[in-house]
Structure formats: structure tokens, C-alpha cells
């Protein structure tokens, strides 16, 4: 159908070329689909292999039509658009002057969410999950977006925060408010310990080392059973209290419960709402901190180092110390988020801290647009809510997630809301372009 409409305006040469390209693509699709989609290994190795010819046919036909359509679209539509500014960038140009207002409005909306009539337990819980990811995204944004260090093991610091919080609570009998800063400090300490030797490395080596470190932490958590409970983890972590008010139906002797103090009937949702506001406060703290530190000399130094390490060094910045501060601070916020995660769940085990979690947090930062605070919110909403909405496609979730990461990179290598101006500039210098390869 599309072909019939397109044909009159597309010359036969273009059509022939498009057909050729589509045939090549279909041939490759056949090679890709035949072994893995067309044949399936049986569960019992004694059975014979299952043959699924239709899967191959569908895959090849889809690729053929898709490639043909793409080639024709490019020949017809794309030339007229090639020189224009992409639609998303034009829309962003309108929105950017209002971004502060939008942000404040958004925060207000988020703040009144639990009071809305439609906000039941599930909605508020989901909101808290989104906020955890927003906070982690903002924390990682300090490392990746501001300082330009690719950290693939961010979840390790999240895990350190969660475990140190839990162990402090259980063994030293601290309360939430005392253990939270300590958990952050522990995570920051780990960040500095790891960062000190490896921050001299080039960017992609750093990525692999942090990835290896993340795996090491997880393996240690699984195997050091006497301290961490092994793969079972630790259960029954108490909920924090609000100025000494607990959130239990029947408080222990000597304690006052929240509902008793205010003279309202007990409801389990109070605890959920309290946790929601707690993570909102923590996330906003992260946001304010990273917005303010951008304007301090150390924040400027991060951005300078990100833009051009050699020039920054020539100006007398010590790259190791500058990077270390970003790494440690980023780790600290992961530690806070980890402590909150532990207290919200009530239990922790190593399976919450896998590489895929690091990849999700990184994807939130990168898809949103590195260095963009709003982008993190947008990406966290997308990545957490989409799987909730599309529950029927749950098994395709990670497939789509990986595919989306590739697609967004190819389409907009700097992220959806790609806005990465250095905070301080000297007037209109022709900057921001990558040197030609």
C-alpha cells in the first residue's frame, strides 16, 4: 500500500536501489533468524530440536518491508528535512526558558500526589520507586554528567549504602536518622578507596574497572554469609520513625505511634506516605546539592575536566583530586538511596544489586541527556512506568530496554534532553563541537 502511494514520486532508479537494499537486509535477517528463531533447543537434551519455519518467514518479511519502507521514506521525505533543526530541538528551544517554572510545578505536583483521591497504596509505592531512581540518576549525574566519568558499577555504592545501613541498625542499634549519614559516608569511603587508584585511567578503562568492582561487591555479599546473610540477605529491617513516632498499629511499650499522636485511626498507608515524602526530600536534597555545587569552584573544575582534561591540567587542576571528589560525592548519594531502599523494602539481598541495576541507572542518566536534571526525571518516569503500564509485555521488557538504549544513542547520541552547556562560559565562543575524528 505504502509502496503504491510512494511509487509515482520516486524514480525507478531509487526504487530499484531500495529493493536491492531491502533484499540484502532480508538475506542477513534470514541468516540471523534461521539458527536462533527458526530452531529451538529442547529442554530435554534427548528430544530432537524444534523447527519453527514461520518465525523465520515473519522475521525476514518484517525486515524486508521495514528496510524498503525506510529507504523509500529517506528518498522522499528526508531530503527536505535534512537541513532543518530536528523537531525535538525546536520544541526544547521553546521550553528551555521556562524550565525553572516547569521544574517547580512538577515538584509541587509530586508533593501533593499522595493527597490526590486516586492515590492508593500502589500509586504511592510506585511513586517512591520512581523517586529512588530519580535520586540515583541525579547522584550518578554528578559522576557521569558533570565530571564525565563513566561509572558502570554505581550499584556497588548503592549496595554498600544499603548493607552498611542495615548492619548499623541491627548491630549497633542506631536509628534511621543516625544510620543514614553513616551509610552515605561508608559509600563515599568506598568510592574514594576505589577511585584513588583507578581515576588516572582513561574513560573506558574506568568503566570496566567500576563494572568489575560492582561484580566483586556482589560476589562478596553473596559469599560473606556470616556478615551479610549470603544470598538470603537480611530481613526485618525496621521502618524509620518520624521524630520518635512509629508507624505500627500497636507500638512497643514506651513508644508512641503516629496515629495515636494525631488521634486518627491507624492505616497502613501512613507508613507508605511517610516513606514517599522521605525519598522526595532525599531526592530534592540531591538535586539542590548538585545544582549548588555546580557553581562552586569544584563543580566548575568537574565541568572543565569533562570538556578538556589536558587544558584543565594545564590550568593547574589536579585531575585525580577533582575526579575523586565527584566520585566520592556520587557514591555518597547512592549510599543514601541504598539506606532508604533497605528501610523501604524491609529486607535486602544481593539480587537487588546486579549489573542490570547499574545499567538502568546509567540509562536514566544517558537517555535523559547527560548533565540534564530534568532529563533524569523524564527518563526515570519512562523506564519505571513503562513496564508497569505494559505488564502484558513483561517478558519483552528488558529486550525493549536494551533496544531503546541503542536506538536513543543512534538517534540522539547526547540524550533526549541534550542540554550540556558548561555552567560558566566566556561569551559566545565557538565551542561544544567534538574535534573531527
Amino acid at each position, binding site marked *: 500500500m505504502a509502496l503504491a502511494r510512494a511509487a509515482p514520486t520516486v524514480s525507478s532508479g531509487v526504487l530499484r536501489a531500495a529493493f536491492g537494499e531491502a533484499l540484502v537486509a532480508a538475506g*542477513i535477517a534470514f*541468516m*540471523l533468524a*534461521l*539458527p*536462533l*528463531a527458526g*530452531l*529451538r*533447543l*529442547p*529442554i530435554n*537434551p534427548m528430544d*530432537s*530440536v524444534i523447527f519453527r519455519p514461520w518465525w523465520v518467514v515473519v522475521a525476514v518479511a518484517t525486515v524486508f518491508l521495514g528496510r524498503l519502507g525506510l529507504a523509500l521514506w529517506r528518498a522522499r521525505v528526508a531530503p527536505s528535512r535534512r537541513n532543518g533543526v530536528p523537531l525535538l530541538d525546536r520544541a526544547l528551544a521553546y521550553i528551555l526558558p521556562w524550565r525553572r517554572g516547569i521544574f517547580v510545578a512538577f515538584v509541587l505536583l509530586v508533593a501533593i500526589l499522595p493527597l490526590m483521591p486516586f492515590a492508593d497504596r500502589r500509586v504511592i509505592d510506585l511513586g517512591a520507586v520512581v523517586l529512588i531512581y530519580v535520586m540515583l540518576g541525579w547522584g550518578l549525574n554528578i559522576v557521569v554528567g558533570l565530571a564525565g566519568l*563513566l561509572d*558502570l558499577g554505581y550499584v556497588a555504592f548503592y549496595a554498600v549504602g544499603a548493607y552498611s545501613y542495615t548492619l548499623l541498625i541491627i548491630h549497633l542499634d542506631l536509628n534511621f536518622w543516625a544510620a543514614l549519614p553513616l551509610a552515605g559516608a561508608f559509600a563515599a569511603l568506598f568510592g574514594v578507596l576505589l577511585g584513588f*587508584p*583507578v581515576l*588516572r*585511567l582513561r*574513560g*573506558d*578503562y574506568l*568503566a*570496566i*574497572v567500576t*563494572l*568489575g*568492582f560492582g*561484580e*566483586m561487591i556482589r*560476589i*562478596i555479599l553473596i*559469599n560473606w554469609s556470616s556478615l551479610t546473610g549470603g544470598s538470603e540477605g537480611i530481613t526485618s529491617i525496621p521502618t524509620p520513625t518520624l521524630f520518635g513516632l512509629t508507624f505500627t498499629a500497636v507500638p512497643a511499650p514506651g513508644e508512641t505511634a503516629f496515629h495515636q499522636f494525631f488521634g486518627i485511626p491507624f492505616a497502613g498507608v501512613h507508613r507508605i506516605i511517610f516513606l514517599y515524602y522521605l525519598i522526595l526530600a532525599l531526592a530534592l536534597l540531591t538535586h539542590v546539592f548538585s545544582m549548588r555545587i555546580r557553581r562552586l569552584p569544584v563543580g566548575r573544575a568537574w565541568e572543565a575536566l569533562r570538556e578538556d582534561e*589536558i587544558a584543565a591540567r594545564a590550568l593547574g587542576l589536579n585531575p585525580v583530586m577533582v575526579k575523586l571528589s565527584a566520585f566520592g560525592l556520587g557514591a555518597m548519594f547512592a549510599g543514601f538511596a541504598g539506606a532508604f531502599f533497605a528501610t523501604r523494602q524491609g529486607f535486602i539481598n544481593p539480587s537487588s544489586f546486579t*549489573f*542490570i541495576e547499574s*545499567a538502568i541507572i*546509567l*540509562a536514566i542518566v*544517558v537517555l535523559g541527556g*547527560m548533565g540534564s536534571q530534568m532529563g533524569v526525571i523524564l527518563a526515570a518516569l519512562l523506564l519505571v512506568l513503562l513496564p508497569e503500564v505494559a505488564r502484558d509485555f513483561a*517478558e*519483552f521488557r*528488558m*529486550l525493549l*530496554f*536494551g*533496544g*531503546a*538504549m*541503542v536506538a536513543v*544513542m*543512534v538517534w540522539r*547520541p*547526547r540524550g533526549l534532553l541534550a542540554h550540556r552547556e558548561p555552567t560558566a562560559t566566556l561569551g559566545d565562543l565557538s565551542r561544544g563541537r*567534538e574535534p*573531527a*575524528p
Partner: protein
Amino acid sequence: MAYFLQQFVNGLTLGAVYGLIAIGYTMVYGIIGMINFAHGEIYMIGAFIAMIAFAVLGVAGVASVPMALIVVLLLAIVFTAAYGWTVERLAYRPLRGSFRLAPLISAIGMSIFLQNYVQLLQGARVKAMGPLFRGGFVLMEDEGFRVTLSYLQLFIIVLTVALMAGFTLLIQRTALGRAQRACEQDQKMAALCGINVDRTISLTFVLGAGLAAVAGLMSTLYYGVIDFFIGFLVGLKAFTAAVLGGIGSLPGAMLGGVLIGLIEAFWAAYFDAAYKDVAAFSILILVLIFRPTGLLGRPQVEKV
């Protein structure tokens, strides 16, 4: 002594598999300076294709083991290479000349995609296969402990050595190898001299995927079980091997692979098997701190 020798043989076999995968990392890094994060997944796909090919040959009634091996080897290489080519074409080529982290992130996405792709198509359960070879040589006997080199281990080591020899010739003597080395040094200059840079890079990915397919076939035979998640850890260790040997250097990748294999085998034998992966990553960190160029790597000169 006998125990030591047995672990040495086991480590060498493991190291051969790591080395073959490490070559893929090192070649890609050498030519376009990116970590092909999805390479471990290519190895996993190679292992799946090899097992599927064995299953198909079993249905077709091929009884001769050498015949089956050769056919499966060729099938695995060809079909896995198609995956290697496609990954480069879709996820990396559009990002050439983009900012530094973009291809790496795209590679991570590709890795997640391929893992789940295989999981959806082949199921999450572990796939098993009966052993193809049995028996081996007894190298020595010491106080009742028998050191054996199984036929399979011998096959893996011999095939790896043969492939390495062929590869060294390919890189040093053929037009493709010359083009590859030229692109490694200076892509723009190579293009000006009439080398098709895109094609050379594509072929690098195809070659790397072919070697990963051989590694996949080997581990299918050696362990007899595979699942969709095997590529992650093995890929990470193979990358460690590439860094240990000096990234960009082919003999270095092989040397690094063998060293990582030996370290892992000895660690598991003499210390705590649960922490053998921690040992491998600690080595990575230590190497990067004390000798960032690796054992056989050239020092990188930073130019302004």
C-alpha cells in the same frame, strides 16, 4: 606436583577459550578505540548456534564425530559472524565520530538486547548436551593421583594454537591485515590511500565474532551446559585478559587469556572457588594501576 600439573592443564584449556574471545576485544579496541561490550554476548550466541547445529546434525543422522565437528565449526563461525556484522552495522557504525561514551552505551544496550533476545527465543532454562569425546591421555601418575589430558582439552588447545598461527599470518601477510593495521594507526590517512575503512572495520567485527564462535563451540563441548547469561562473566574476564596482555596486541590477548585461565584454575584449586572471579577482577585493577599498557602493549602517547 601432580595436582599442580592437572590444574595447569585445566587452566590452559580455560585460557585458550578466554584468549580467543580476548582477540575480538583487542582487535576492535585497536581499530576504533571502543570496548565492544556486546562481544561476550556474541560468544554466547556462538555457543547456542554450535549446540543447535549439533542437535540438527543429530537429527540428520551424522554419526562421524570429526565430520560433525568440522561442519558445526563452520556453521557456528558463519552464523555468528553474521551477528557480529549486524551488531556493528546497527549499533556502532552510525555513532562513528560521535562523542566518546555514545558507542560504549550503545554497546551496553546491545548486550542487554542480545541476552534477552536469546532468552526469549530459546528459553531461560539451561541447555545441556551429552559429551562428544571421552577419554584422554594419562600424562603421569603420582601417589594414585592421575593427571589426564582429555582428548577434548587437546582438541581445544591444538585448535587455538592453529587459529592463532593462522591469524598472525592473516594480520601480517594479507591485504586485509595490512588495511587493518593501517586503520589502526590513522583512519583518515588509510582512507586517503584507498582503503575502505568502513569495510575494514566490519571485517574486524566479523573476524572477532568468528573467533568468539569457536570459543563458544569449545565451551559448549567442554562444559556441556549453556544458558543465555554465560556471555556476561566470560566476556568480562576475556576483556580483563585483553587488558592484561596489553590492549591492541594480538599475542598479548592470547597471553592474557592463558594467564587469566591459569590464575582462575589455581585460585579455585588452592584457595576459595567462590572468590575466583574476585581474583580475576583484582588482577585487572592491579594491572591497570601498575602497568596500564599491559604486558605486551605499547605506551599510548597523548597528543594535544
